[in-house]
């Protein structure tokens, strides 16, 4: 497929990165101006990403490359429908989290450090989605990972520092492994371009297997799949809630995106199937799904429970992409999208609950539904979506994934998905029941909705929760159509 010259991916990626510089000077003069500037930057980034849509729709793939920067690889940018879809959801959730941050972060302090790194990691994240070759992807991947470190250790408590250190070390290992894989790919193929049909590895040998493992470790650590998930349940809960929402909702997905590119663009589904390496991925996916959901049941801290839930959900994503068929891949891409909405909602709601009550243990939240009806209402929507209850978006992704598993002739994974849904029910439903029902009569006084939180906090939550509902319900489901066309493109199916 021909690529059309377009600078929008470059602009969308570089704008938030470069904008941190003026932000640095603005924040020295006025804190209020800084908050507004951060919002404006996130908003413009979203607009830039959104403005790619007409080009993507009419031209298919757009991009531009600069071979002079960082030779011999060069930096190139490229956006197809998959990149666009993920960049769009990333920048949208980022904007909402930035809105949320203004109220939420007021009690956390150190905002002059927080905002620049928030935007820097946005730029890195968009860079990962919008680059056209593996090396550029690696550069932005590292940028995002390091910027996110600062967000994780924001509190600077001993716990946060320890978790951050763990994250940093594992990220370094991941980055090095990824780089190693890219070097091998360059050696073998002579280029590291990502593009349809441009498979960098064409035969199964030790070298390509070595590169496969390197990519798997590199992206797997970021994605949090077993056994490389250990940093995740420590790092996500200690970060401030908007950052947790972004870490779990978006940044994990960069790893998933990398794996999709690896399997479908670097190796090609046929080579993976021929080599039988999809079985490695499937086994890891199975373990990740079960382990994430099971351990989440054992957690009592709400954010830790959500973090383990993310591990289980990343298992779904890995499962779908390793099924090597269109339905599985569609399910994966749609689940990346759905999970971004659901998990961000849940983390922002959990943040609001912690912000309002100062508590973190799940049993302490009895009757909180009466004090915070909007927040817990949105939490309920997102949690039901997570379990896969119709009519929310999580149901559709599980449905498509299950059909993909059946298409691949692996009904065992349907049972695993169903079992995991039941386990999701076991750890999410008690939170909801506890919040609304079985409360003593005198405590059952409804707070006036919309006064529980400031608008800056409830608006993002409500919008995200509405997203969970609309993208499940809406008759013309754009993200699903995009996911389908992206999956067809990746699988090389011509429609």
């Amino acid at each position, binding site marked *: 497929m021909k690529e059309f010259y377009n600078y929008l991916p470059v602009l969308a990626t570089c704008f938030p990165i470069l904008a941190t510089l003026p932000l640095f000077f603005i924040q020295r003069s006025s804190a209020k101006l800084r908050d507004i500037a951060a919002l404006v930057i996130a908003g413009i980034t979203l607009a830039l990403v959104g403005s790619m849509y007409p080009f993507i729709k009419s031209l298919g793939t757009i991009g531009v490359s600069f071979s002079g920067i960082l030779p011999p690889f060069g930096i190139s940018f490229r956006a197809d429908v998959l990149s666009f879809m993920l960049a769009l959801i990333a920048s949208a959730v980022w904007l909402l989290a930035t809105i949320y941050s203004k109220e939420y972060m007021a009690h956390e302090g150190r905002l002059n450090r927080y905002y620049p790194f928030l935007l820097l990691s946005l730029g890195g994240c968009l860079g990962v989605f919008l680059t056209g070759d593996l090396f550029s992807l690696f550069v932005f991947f590292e940028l995002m990972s390091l910027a996110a470190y600062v967000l994780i250790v924001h509190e600077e408590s001993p716990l946060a520092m320890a978790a951050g250190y763990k994250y940093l070390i594992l990220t370094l290992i991941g980055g090095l492994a990824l780089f190693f894989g890219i070097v091998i790919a360059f050696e073998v193929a002579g280029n590291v371009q990502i593009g349809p049909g441009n498979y960098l590895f064409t035969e199964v040998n*030790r070298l390509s297997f070595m590169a496969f493992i390197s990519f798997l470790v590199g992206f797997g650590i970021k994605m949090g799949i077993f*056994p490389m998930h250990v940093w995740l349940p420590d790092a996500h809960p200690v970060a401030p809630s908007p950052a947790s929402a972004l870490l779990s909702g978006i940044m994990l997905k960069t790893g998933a995106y990398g794996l999709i590119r690896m399997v479908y663009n670097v190796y090609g589904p046929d080579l993976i199937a021929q080599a039988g390496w999809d079985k490695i991925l499937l086994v890891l996916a199975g373990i990740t799904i079960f382990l994430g959901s*099971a351990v989440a049941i*054992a957690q009592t801290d709400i954010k830790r429970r959500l973090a383990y839930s993310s591990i289980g959900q990343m298992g779904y994503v890995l499962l779908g992409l390793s099924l090597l068929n269109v339905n599985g891949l569609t399910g994966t891409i749609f689940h990346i999208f759905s999970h971004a909405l659901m998990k961000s909602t849940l983390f922002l709601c959990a943040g609001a609950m912690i912000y309002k009550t100062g508590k973190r243990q799940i049993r302490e939240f009895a009757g909180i539904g009466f004090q915070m009806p909007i927040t817990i209402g949105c939490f309920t929507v997102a949690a039901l979506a997570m379990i896969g209850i119709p009519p929310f978006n999580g149901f559709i992704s599980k449905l498509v994934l299950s059909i993909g598993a059946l298409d691949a002739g692996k009904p065992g994974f349907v049972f695993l998905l169903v079992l995991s849904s039941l386990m999701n029910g076991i750890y999410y439903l008690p939170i909801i029941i506890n919040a609304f029902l079985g409360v003593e009569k005198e405590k059952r006084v409804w707070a006036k909705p919309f006064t529980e939180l400031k608008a800056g906090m409830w608006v993002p939550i409500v919008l995200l929760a509405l997203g969970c509902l609309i993208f499940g319900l809406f008759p013309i489901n754009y993200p699903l159509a995009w996911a389908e066309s992206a999956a067809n493109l990746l699988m090389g199916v011509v429609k």
Partner: protein
Amino acid sequence: MNAQWLLALALSCPLAGGLVTWLARTQLNKRLGAINLTFTALSLICVALAWFGGGRQAITFQLPGFMALGLNFELNGLTAIFALLFLAAWTATSIYCFGYMENEGSPRRFYVFLQLTLLGCIGVVLASDLITLFLFFELMTLCSYVLVIHKEDADAMSAGNLYLFLGVFGGLALLTGIFLLYNATGTVSFTAIPPAVAENTGLVAAMGIAFLLGFGIKAGIFPLHIWLPKAHPVAPTPASALLSGIMIKTGAYGLFRVFYSVIAPAGQNGAGAVFFGSTLLGLGLITMVLGAFLALQQRQAKKTLAYSSVSQIGYIVMGLGAAVLPFGHDLYGVSGMLFHILNHAVFKTTLFLCVGAIYVYTHSLEFDQLGGLLKKYPLVTFAFVIGALGITGMPGFNGYGSKTFLHHALTDLYSANPSWLLWLAEKLFVLASALTICYFVKLFVNIFLGEKDWSRLPARMALSLQLPLVLGAAAVIYIGIFPQHTARAVIIPAMKAIGFDQISLEHVAGINVWNGHDLSSMAITIAVAAAILLLVYRFKIDNLKFPPWLSLERLLYLPAARGFMGLCQGPVAYADSLVNGIYYGFGGLFLGICKHSARIDGAIDSLYRKAGTGSVKLIGATGLLDKRVNDLYSVLGKGSLKGFGKLAAWDRNLDELYKNLGLVFTRAIGKLDAVDRKLTETPVQPEDKREWLGRMQRAMANFSGKISNLNVEVLVAALALGVVVLIFVFYGFLGGKMN
């Protein structure tokens, strides 16, 4: 109006009703109840207009693209009957709510979820494919949970939890079944699976079990019934009546559609038909007898009725089993089953509402605290007796017709396939019917007979409580007296819709239940019941004390749940922390190695230092020796100097001589040198210093730079080890610090 839009309107009424109730700024039961009744009745009217007004033609309504799947509804003979039945019962119960919900609290929440549950129920029966059915099934499960736990006391919450988790589990099992079906056949509509799929017995078995679990939990068949006797009694009575009278029928309806139309369709005498037919028949019989027996053991009115529902669902599932079994005629089973679903909805709703009406005034359901209400509330007593006569199948009341149809199904099976199991089935049928009579006698005696002072109660009941009872009782009597008419008006169109031919339909229309044979079998049932009642009277077999471990919950469900939770919280959480521990362990290990390396390094360092010190000392000693030698020389020198002075003078003379000789020689050599220079005029070439650089370049060019030509394993191992050691040094540093 277009019939299609009427159908859409009927479905949107409950949704709108729920929304309006939610938005209504009032907590007054009367107003909220009025909204509830309006929307329910409107929905009923819409369905009735669409069906009867449209000349009883099948109507389809589609909502393509909804949830990316599309919703498909169909109103036909079968679904119209179910929808109308559900809506009629819902309307009657909505009237009842005016009187009942006055003293229950949180009326708004109740009505909102009552409307949504209604939407779920009618959606399930109007759905024309399994995905649509599933969506509404889930809606119904989740919304009815809120009805179950309405009281929010400890009992309600624990019953609700059991209900919710089994409900979610059932929903997922159903979804699995749908996936398997879709994958095998490519369709989710209620059409028979193709023979190629039917031959794959493993797949059919997996599918059938998934559906059996999914719908069976909702229907409450043995051994999946455990939630039912807990959840139905704790709900407010209107909800109990609808749960028992209507909602469990959605499970039966689902079983019927899936097993009768899809998995084991008529005309395909595959292994699936025999297997699932006998399974359903067997489970139905066990459920019938066990439910009736346990109902007899209860000492609380709503619990008795809940177990009674379990037992009656057994009848329905048994009829389905008889229809699915490939021998005999399936028309008896199907007609009996459909007829009994209708009848049970009528009398069970009536009975629950009777008990609830009593509860509103007495605030008690325990047998110990009730009694003597016959004179106080004769109308309730009348309705209750009518309902009881209906459920026990007395001739002249509605249960007689359907039970006779079901009995026909069993005897027909036996005559087609005279095995002792089917003989036993017929006897169990009689036993279950006899037990039904027994527990209703017990219920009636304990609530209405005897003497008790009820003068504190008001003499008149609220009209809204009485009206639905009268309607129910009237329906019981009407259907009881004209069973053929009901069959023609209700059962025949339904059977026509699922594809029975005209001969079968005429046969069903021609069944006359008023014959000596059927009446005498009823007489036998009554005789058995009398014998059991004697036993009850003499040996108190209605009040057996079972050991607490002897329950399905203790034997099966709790261990399974605890085992699973234990697995999650124990080994799996342990495995997770183990992986984490491995990371820390590696960190610690490398930290240890590094500490050791540092120690070796220190040792080497100190070795150097010692060696240095030794050298310094050695050097010092050498210096001393040197000095001594020097001294020696200087002493020797001083002695020598004197001797040398004399020698010097002599030497100077000799020197003069040499100088003169030297001058001569120098001139001679100068001459020779000039000659030599002329001979060797050619300049000397400087050596080429770039020669080795070129050689180096050639060597480099020959050297292969491809990594693939190197020994990859060694390179990778070296690199990986290097990286890992480096990283884990830091990582371990952290680990050490944390410990």
